[in-house]
């Protein structure tokens, strides 16, 4: 699916689509890559139906919620899309995948990537980055997570304390922030 070079239909593999980011950068990307973003695909198809003769493939698709730095990373991720996001068969394979996800960016980057992938409806990317963020927070403390997501705890202090006593084992073995 991602193998555009062997696409039997040359007209679709060579077509380019221009995307315009929130900071007014223009990105010219291969159609096959752009079509991974369902939001773009939808826009593109609507445009095509409306006035294919008037503007054709020179259409610029605006992405007002995506910054150029984030889009660049999503496109590069798209181009070297991992074989699959399927669950690893064994422990070692899972560890390798974990490392791969860890190298992909800081937790802050992941938040931007997830927001953009969600907006663009980029399924494979969203799965990958969600998993990377899950890896990152799973052993963190409640305080870290609140700070990271900007959440204020809204339980009564005695209520929270009682919960922590009840499930003390779940609060053990927390990584440093």
């Amino acid at each position, binding site marked *: 699916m991602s193998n555009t070079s062997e696409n039997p239909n040359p007209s679709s593999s060579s077509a380019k689509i221009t995307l315009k980011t929130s900071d007014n950068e223009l990105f010219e990307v291969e159609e096959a890559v752009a079509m991974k973003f369902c939001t773009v695909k939808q826009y593109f198809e609507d445009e095509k139906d409306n006035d294919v003769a008037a503007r054709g493939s020179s259409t610029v698709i605006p992405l007002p919620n995506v910054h150029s730095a984030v889009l660049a990373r999503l496109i590069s991720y798209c181009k070297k899309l991992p074989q699959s996001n399927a*669950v690893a068969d064994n*422990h070692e394979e899972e560890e390798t995948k974990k490392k791969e996800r860890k190298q992909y960016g800081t937790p802050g980057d992941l*938040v931007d990537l*997830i*927001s953009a992938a*969600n907006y663009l409806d980029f399924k494979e990317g*969203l*799965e990958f980055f*969600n*998993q990377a*963020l*899950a890896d990152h*927070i*799973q*052993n963190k403390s*409640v305080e870290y*997570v*609140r700070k*990271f*997501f*900007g*959440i*204020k*705890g*809204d*339980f009564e202090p005695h209520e*929270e304390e009682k*919960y*922590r006593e009840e*499930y003390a*084992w*779940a*609060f053990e073995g*927390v990584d440093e922030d």
Partner: protein
Amino acid sequence: MVKFPSDVLFEIFSRLPIKSLLKFRSVSQQWRNIIDDPYLAYMHHSRCVEEPKILLLDHHTQNEKPIDAKVTNVGVFLNADLNLVAKFTKSMTCYLEDCCNGLLCLSKSYDDRFLVLFNPLRQQVLPLPPSSASPKLGSRKYGFWFDHQKNTYNIVVVAVFLRESVDEKPCYKLGAEVYTLGTS
């Protein structure tokens, strides 16, 4: 400040181990509501976040020969206090009827009206209403599943019960009843 829509949070949570989910139930009310959604348990289970573990239950009823109950593929029990499960089954003299998304469905050996759902992680027990069918239930069989379209848990009981007929020949009748839990 991170503003994720709740469906993105849901996706992330479905990739976290149970231990983390229990911990993060104390982050905020919103997080707790998402984590407690029965659909999350289903998603979580289907993603196989944790390696399946085999849990063996071995319990003894008083003055009776031991009864073994075997559960397989209960990955979500990974961090559970297994002593608790054992304690529960021992004290209640229960049969494990079925399990689904980490919940156990248990019946009591000599009481046809007794049926509970047990969540070993939360240490919660939910008694179910007794079957409206005849209390003379002979043999019973339970099935327990999650309907992910309706977001409900369902328990079906199929039972054979014995009725005395006029000429004193035994007469068997097969009946089934379905309990539905949760909101659709």
